[in-house]
């Protein structure tokens, strides 16, 4: 089985990873959004598990939430109510958007099988006083992880974890760079599956697989790559269907600034002999999340992606009621459209109404 198929297999059934990891009693900690440092969880000998959703309609969650909350978060809560996250020993959230805050309130009240904790993080980047605040929160979080795992987190174990995770980020970035060429080595949907599988897998397993994959695809050329090159951004996409839709319509998804891809590996940790300080700066010396400030930074970052991957068009896939990106796409629209045509689309996380979406994407691609 080629490495791409292995990645797809892991993406399709993450439970295999869980069973293997929990075989000898090791613990798994679920987390959502980027300000929960996976390195701390890993240094305590536990598996950080990024909780992704499933493209199913909402069943139970709508009795708790009003339906005007983001469907991705309602889907996560639905899965939690269905005990689909029962294997987690703890769920850790952080301070990003309104919906994630609601998830903490709801999970803490109505899901008793898995305890929930919230790491408080500043939303203003590059601010020394913010580093101090976040450091205090991470010290408390580190203590919590030590109590949960029963293992002590030392500077050495933390440094090793940081190195391990940085290695995964470097490899994913190297793989992503293979898409800069005129004919990318890997398609958008294949890359998303690989990136998400690498996020799900223990990094000890992911890194060798990624190295093998890079060799395999180094001089591979994907089929029908003559269409316009598209940058995908917007709310979290945890299912390749939307990307496949763009590719079927003749678009080449050259780069995707998503929580499940570029945002995860775009930066690596700067060398620092205090590992906790390294983690603080890794998270707070960049503006990747649309909830954070200064948002002009995100605009420059998108410009960088447009140049490096010579992008012809941008598509914003905004999940309905996803306020951070609904504001960003409206605020950036005029400036972005001076350089590159931009299409903003409203999508459902449960992937309903794909028919209308196809028409809009195909028209956009015909326009480029």
């Amino acid at each position, binding site marked *: 089985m080629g490495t791409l198929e292995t990645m797809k297999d892991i993406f399709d059934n993450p439970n295999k990873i869980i069973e293997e990891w929990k075989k000898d009693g090791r613990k798994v900690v679920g987390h959502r959004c980027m300000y929960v440092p996976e390195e701390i969880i890993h240094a305590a000998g536990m598996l950080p598990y990024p909780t992704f959703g499933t493209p*199913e309609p909402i069943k139970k969650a709508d*009795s708790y939430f009003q*339906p*005007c909350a983001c469907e991705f978060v309602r889907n996560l809560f639905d899965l939690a109510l269905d005990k689909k996250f029962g294997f987690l020993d703890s769920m850790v959230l952080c301070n990003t958007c309104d919906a994630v805050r609601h998830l903490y309130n709801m999970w803490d009240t109505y899901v008793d099988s898995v305890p929930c904790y919230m790491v408080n993080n500043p939303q203003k980047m590059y601010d020394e006083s913010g580093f101090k605040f976040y450091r205090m929160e991470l010290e408390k979080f580190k203590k919590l992880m030590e109590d949960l795992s029963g293992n002590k987190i030392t500077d050495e174990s933390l440094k090793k974890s940081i190195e391990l995770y940085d290695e995964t980020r470097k490899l994913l970035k190297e793989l992503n760079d293979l898409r800069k060429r005129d004919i990318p080595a890997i398609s958008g949907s294949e890359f998303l599956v690989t990136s998400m599988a690498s996020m799900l897998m223990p990094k000890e397993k992911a890194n060798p697989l990624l190295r093998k994959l890079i060799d395999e695809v180094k001089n591979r050329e994907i089929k029908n790559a003559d269409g316009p090159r598209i940058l995908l951004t917007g709310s979290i996409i945890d299912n390749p269907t939307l990307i496949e839709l763009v590719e079927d319509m003749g678009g080449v998804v050259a780069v995707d600034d998503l929580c499940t891809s570029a945002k995860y590996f775009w930066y690596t940790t700067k060398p620092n002999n205090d590992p906790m300080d390294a983690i603080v700066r890794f998270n707070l010396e960049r503006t990747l999340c649309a909830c954070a400030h200064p948002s002009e930074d995100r605009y420059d970052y998108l410009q960088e992606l447009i140049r490096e991957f010579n992008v012809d068009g941008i598509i914003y896939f905004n999940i309905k009621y996803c306020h951070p990106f609904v504001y960003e796409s409206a605020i950036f629209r005029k400036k972005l459209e001076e350089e590159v045509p931009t299409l903003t689309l409203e999508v459902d996380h*449960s992937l*309903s*109404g794909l028919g209308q979406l196809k028409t809009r994407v195909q028209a956009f691609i015909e326009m480029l």
Partner: protein
Amino acid sequence: MLTAGIDAGSLSTKVVILNQDKIMAYEVLATGIDIGAATKRAMDNVLEKAGISLQDVESIGSTGVGKKKVPYKSVQGTEVVCDTKGALYFYPKSNGVIDIGGENCRAIKFDAEGNIVDFALNDKCASGTGIFLDAMAKALRVKPEEMGELSLQSTEDIEVTSMCSVFAESEVVSMIHRKVPKNNILRGIHKSIASRVVGLANRILLEGNVIIIGGIAKNIGLVTTLNELMNSELTVPEKPEVVGALGAALLARERKE
């Protein structure tokens, strides 16, 4: 003691004549543009069916969105109160009632003595159940009454995911174009409505013996799907669409005594 109950809904108007403990006659017709005229027409038909005249009726109760426009002096009650009285009339032991009407659905919970404990209304985005079903019947070229049975002969469980009836309509239209078998689409439609109703019932933790009323309750497909999704015991009275009007009649009689 003869009493009349009028349920002036925005889509259909229902009138009931109650004689002691028996429903003597009932009438259901489309409200159309003029509520007053529709109520009068329905009243005349039901009086004729019962073989009595307006003077014989001692008191009249009215409910529904058009209760203020009913052209008779009547005791006015809210839908929540009338649905409860109507349901308890048939089933004194029940714990709650779900009213699936043309525009909205309502879930009501009451205690052993029949006092209303809690009730929940569907979100605006999930309204239009009845209209949605009619539109789907037209799009699928199927008679509305047959939709229920057809949905039970489905071969595969497909999802109509959107909650809003307008999106669901466009979703179904695209399924028709993709030549998805009619019965499977109907199954998807009924499951999506049933899960919305279950969501409503869960909001007030409604369990036990629940009465399903309202025009849509006659749809066997929907009630069967509800039975699958809800772990409570569901019963559909014989004439589910007039239970509200019956409740209004009972209200009027109570006030008279």
